[in-house]
């Protein structure tokens, strides 16, 4: 069974898709968005041990790495995480010099499913998010297949860097994708995320046409990119494909969780956000919300 690095599992989430869902956050992301609210999910831990110094309850410890062959030791150290001791004070990743989090667990799909099962009477499905969940494609396929077999809905929350159209096997067990669309122009997208957006836009079109687009999200940071252009182009594209009931979630940038060097970005005004809503509604979108 494939394992993934799981950053956290939220048993009841009201913000990761329709209804009550268990949200599974996987570690690692190919984008490096300046306004990222969870920058600790971007990189993988390199086990330098810096965070251990700041872990007061002793949930993080530096242990000697065990290699597979019996009794062979490399002498290398690993950061070990004990979730039962963790008080979620976030001190570890606040002090991480690599933009990573050691507060993660390596879990198989079945192990994750075991945690999902406790919530089953109260949830309508699961949402796998990140980081970027599609970096763990094989794990994802197993987890979503297990969830589907137990009658749960399955959603992915993605930055759009994975070509969904080329993976019918994964799409068969995915009810829908909640897609982040950031800057519309390639140049701005590069500046905001460090990556090209051609794949994101292809995904937007393909998912909408395939009836797999549950939600589009745009985090509004006016001084970073032309937000109005994004909202306009996304709305026009959805309207053109007759995909009017996908939710468009317009997200207000807030400095919470954002890295120090980007914290100075200005949050948008309510007036500006309402203008964006007006644009989307003007194209006939029926479910536009601001959060």
């Amino acid at each position, binding site marked *: 069974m494939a394992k993934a690095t799981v950053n956290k599992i939220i048993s009841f989430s009201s913000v990761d898709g329709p*209804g009550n869902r268990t949200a599974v956050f996987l570690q690692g992301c190919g984008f490096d968005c300046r306004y990222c609210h969870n920058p600790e999910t971007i990189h993988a831990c390199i086990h330098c041990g810096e965070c251990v110094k700041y872990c007061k309850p002793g949930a993080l410890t530096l242990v000697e790495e065990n290699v597979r062959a019996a009794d062979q030791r490399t002498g290398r150290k690993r950061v070990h995480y004990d979730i039962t001791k963790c008080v979620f004070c976030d001190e570890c990743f606040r002090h991480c010099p690599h933009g990573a989090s050691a507060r993660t667990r390596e879990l198989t799909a079945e192990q994750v499913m075991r945690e999902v099962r406790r919530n089953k*009477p109260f949830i309508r499905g699961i949402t796998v998010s990140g980081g970027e969940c599609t970096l763990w494609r094989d794990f994802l396929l197993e987890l979503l297949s297990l969830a589907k077999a137990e009658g749960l809905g399955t959603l992915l929350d993605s930055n759009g860097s994975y070509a969904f159209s080329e993976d019918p096997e994964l799409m068969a067990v995915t009810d829908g994708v909640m897609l982040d669309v950031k800057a519309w122009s390639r140049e701005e997208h590069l500046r905001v995320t460090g990556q090209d957006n051609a794949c994101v836009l292809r995904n937007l079109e393909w998912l909408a046409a395939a009836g797999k687009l549950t939600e589009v999200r745009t985090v509004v940071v006016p001084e970073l990119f032309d937000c109005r252009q994004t909202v306009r182009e996304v709305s026009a594209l959805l309207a053109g494909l007759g995909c009017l009931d996908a939710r468009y979630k317009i997200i207000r940038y807030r400095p919470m969780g954002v890295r120090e060097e980007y914290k100075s970005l200005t949050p948008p005004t309510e007036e500006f956000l309402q203008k964006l809503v007006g644009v989307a509604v003007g194209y006939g979108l029926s479910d536009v919300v601001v959060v």
Partner: protein
Amino acid sequence: MLRRELRSGKTIPAERFARRYMENGFKNRFLMNELKYEVRVMKRILTPEIIEEKRKEIYETIVDPTSSHEQKVTYLARHAENFMTVLDEPEELDELMRCDIDTRCICNLFEGDAPYRPRYICIDFPKFLREGSEFLQLGPAKDFAEALTNLMIMYHNIPSITNYPVFIGDLDELLGPYIEDLDDETVKKALRLWLTMVDRTILDSFCHSDIGPKASRFGYLLMEVESELENAVPNLTMRVSKDTPDDFILAGVKCALHSAKPSFANDEMFRSELGDDYCIASCYNGLLKGGGSYTLSRLILSNIAKKAEGIEDFKTNVLPHVCDVMARYMDERIRFLVEESGWFTNSFLAREGFVRRDKFTAMFGLVGLAECVNLLLEKEGCTERFGHSDRANQLGVEIMDIIDHFNKNHYNPYCEATDHHFLLHAQVGIESDHDCSPGTRIPIGEEPDELVDHLNCIKLFHKYFPSGTGDIFPVDLTVHKNPQYVLDIIRGSLGIDIRYLSFYASDSDVIRVTGYLVKRSEMEKLDAGQNVRQNTTGLGLGAAKNCKILDRRIR
């Protein structure tokens, strides 16, 4: 026999009178009025010191700047009632009830010492609208305006412990038939005015209306108006069954995010225990329509635990003893009410058949299970806490089983409606409670991090309480954009025999205190020394200060 006793002209003992009443009361009411029975003698002696103390309390009520006129009248009536010593109480009662608040094991919730009306009265409103009332000089209600007016008149004539009606009807079933030919705007305008009148004249939020489990046009319109008005009165419950459409529940959730109501009741569960004729009254009390509850006393489990040496002593000696004293006290209150007070003979509600004595029961209440469990475990050197450990929760279940078993073996002659037993009730607490959580709730501030763990704990306890229990969850604002989140939690909870749930938005002005609703803005006025309209605002303010109700974990 009745006629012979009448002819003799002799006075008969009250007990025999009650028996005659049971045999003949309803059909020979006028003959019964001729029968003489002996007046009870005073049971307890009030010393001059006690009388002086009571006079002081009366004076304090008269000059209290934070009480409105109506509130003073209610309190003064209670003071007067408490000069009476007509109840033949169990000898052990005084040391368990009339004692210091930190050692009090039984509490009668300010019911007076000479009960002259049942605590909760839930009248048969459909009969009233259908037939009118001779006493109120009203005929059948023929249209919507008449129905609303007649109900309002009736509300003013229903006593209860609060002197206001605690149940004002299944509004959808009662009023739905009258709106068939009216358009939405007309209905909403009339409802807006009517509900405002209810809020401004029923000055106590222990006043409950019900809708569901069927969706109805009236139900939708009611919730639309309620979310606009954001009033604390009346409280509202939506009964939810498997057949209740999602859309109707969602309308309820959206309304609750504005006005903290409706709450959601497990229809299948209540129906299986109380039958089809049940209603939700006062806070969240399951009772019979056309009946109600004679009385409610409560065990203060947290204090009862203090008296025990350990878990075993608590289970085998201390708890059964207090249960026994409280049950005998309740028996005596019921006896006085039924046999002596004359309410069931003289009130027009009984005379005209809007209530029937044999549809009344009584509520055997309790509070502080969490603190009781924690204290007992501490006495055994264990630091595990209620709501957080299987051992603690299991002890809670064992204690509930003992109380349930006691109640099922206690016989009361006047509780025919519920097989001659009382109904257990998880009481919501009063403002003077401290270190004592409502019913079986997990203390505020100690709620499990995950809502799923919270729900899995409460499901262990809801099944014990046909006459009411419930848990309250303030929810994060983002839920306004995703009311289906709450819908999923409701569906999941009712599926695992959770009985009753309430939600409100964490920023709402109307909030649920422990079972009843108050407005934050009104509490602030009262806190600043002004008097306010509703009795319950004062209770809410006390609860905010003593019971941390503003600090619940937001979900």
